[in-house]
């Protein structure tokens, strides 16, 4: 099967999922339910594409297919910001009530965290990507422990409010924020469009990429920033989803055996949309909201992650 055919099939399935989610069992409450469902579909699409895109990019620049950008500690930074707000200012503070303010503060904090880390580690001749990952991971754990500490001390009522921020959820997405996120995503795509072929070359490794005229370290830096912005946007919009990017990126590599990032990223994005919209549909209508999508994603993602680890270790040995 050609890659074009595969992408068309994925596109058709994702449209079917969207239609199913938008129209299934809607009788009676159309004017109430339909706009709300549309917003949710849009939010899931944005999140899905942002995570797929940033994970594929991140895995290419780290030359590692079992990493997600979340090892950089961005999720933890998000939790720190939210916990600080709830702990020091309370759930009635302007930073919680004003969605725009909360959204921008979260994004700015996450991107600033990433930029500081990159800036601090960037040297003229070589980008020490593994050192960066290690430090990101350690800082992530540190921030995670700090949040847990505050969460133990926090007023129990505030904790209940905070809890809603701790898990990814599409059910209470704010409609206005969706448009802001969409604008960020569009800008990222516009910028990323001309980087696709550079990413293809970068998968040949640093030395071959430099040989072929790619300004490797600069591109690594720019793509790290880009993927941090995307992760920050999706996290601020719906909350942290850990394993999701890993699943869709690897499914895309397996399904579309190519090195071309334009195809891989499109594939991963479509798979994400199918998983999120389709998954949310199943949860709402089959499980009748007895569980949340992020629980299922983490469950399936964990199993898939173990499978990937086993496969990698077999091919390495």
């Amino acid at each position, binding site marked *: 099967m050609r890659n074009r055919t595969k992408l068309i099939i994925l596109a058709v399935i994702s449209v079917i999922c969207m239609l199913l989610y938008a129209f299934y069992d809607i009788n009676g409450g159309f004017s109430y339910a339909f706009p709300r469902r549309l917003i949710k579909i849009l939010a899931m699409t944005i999140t899905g594409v942002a995570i797929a895109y940033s994970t594929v990019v991140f895995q290419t620049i780290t*030359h590692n*297919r079992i990493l997600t950008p979340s090892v950089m500690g961005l999720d933890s930074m998000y939790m720190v910001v939210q916990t600080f707000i709830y702990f020091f200012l309370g759930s009635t503070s302007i930073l919680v009530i004003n969605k725009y303010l909360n959204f921008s503060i979260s994004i700015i904090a996450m991107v600033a965290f990433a930029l500081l880390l990159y800036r601090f580690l960037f040297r003229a*001749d070589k980008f020490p990507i593994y050192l960066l990952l290690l430090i990101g991971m350690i800082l992530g754990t540190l921030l995670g422990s700090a949040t847990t500490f505050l969460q133990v001390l926090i007023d129990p009522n505030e904790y209940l409010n905070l809890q809603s921020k701790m898990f990814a959820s599409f059910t209470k997405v704010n409609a206005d924020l969706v448009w802001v996120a969409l604008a960020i995503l569009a800008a990222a795509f516009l910028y990323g469009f001309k980087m696709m*072929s550079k990413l293809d070359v970068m998968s*040949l*490794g640093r030395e071959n990429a*430099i*040989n072929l005229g*790619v300004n490797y370290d600069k591109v690594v830096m720019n793509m790290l920033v880009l993927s941090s912005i995307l992760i920050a946007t999706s996290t601020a919009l719906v909350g942290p989803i850990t394993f999701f990017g890993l699943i869709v990126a690897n499914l895309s590599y397996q399904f579309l*055996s190519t090195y071309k990032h334009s195809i891989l990223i499109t594939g991963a994005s479509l798979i994400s949309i199918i998983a999120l919209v389709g998954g949310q549909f199943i949860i709402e209508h089959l499980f009748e909201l007895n569980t949340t999508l992020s629980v299922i994603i983490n469950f399936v993602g964990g199993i898939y992650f173990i499978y990937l680890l086993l496969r990698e270790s077999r091919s390495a040995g």
Partner: protein
Amino acid sequence: MIKVKGLSKFFGKKAVIDNVSVTIEPGKITSFIGPNGAGKSTLLSMVSRLLNADTGEVLLETNDIRTIKSDEFAKRVSILKQSNFMNVRLTIRELVSFGRYPYSKGRLTKEDLKFVDQALEYMNLTDMQDRYLDELSGGQRQRAFIAMVIAQDTEYVLLDEPLNNLDMKHSVQIMKILRKLVDELGKTVVIVLHDINFASVYSDRIVALKDGRVIKEGTTDEIINSAALKQIYDMDIPVQEQNGCRICVYFNSHS
């Protein structure tokens, strides 16, 4: 012409390249030889801008290579390192097509395809162009990477130990191809070699490094003699002539 002027590189406090000045003459094969840790690969990496020098400069014709835009540089100088680990699965043809990236930025034109076909032909890979790199033997793989560099069609071709892990037959094959690149296509080849006999038989000029310094530099005849080799390797190496080739018989010499 590539001119290296007063180049140094420090790893920590230790100078791995210490004030090196070398001229690489066009239309010739220049070999870098020397003991392990002499700085051959580091020097090659700096000439090809894989590594930044701490002091000194590298001039391509008259321009400092740091002032040349990276995609322009990639059309004039190519470099192939010894290890080429990749995370993606590519066919030989796909890999060789990457050689055209500096020109086409991923969208191959008819002219690009012509170069790719020629490079495959040149390296005898046409029949197996659709096979995946991970299915190939070391020699075939090495040939595929060299084909990529040939498709890149640069005036200067720099190779870091291209004979590593190859048997005699494939080593000779690759050296003959490099000779052809110089004699037929007028390229300039710079190559890091471990086996001084390959350097002796195939190169026009030899640059000998030791402890980060150029210890000897000259035509092959000037370097491949017992006196010069003693200085470079601290070994008494008899040199014998066989069919017009100078062969260093170092296997049972004592240092």
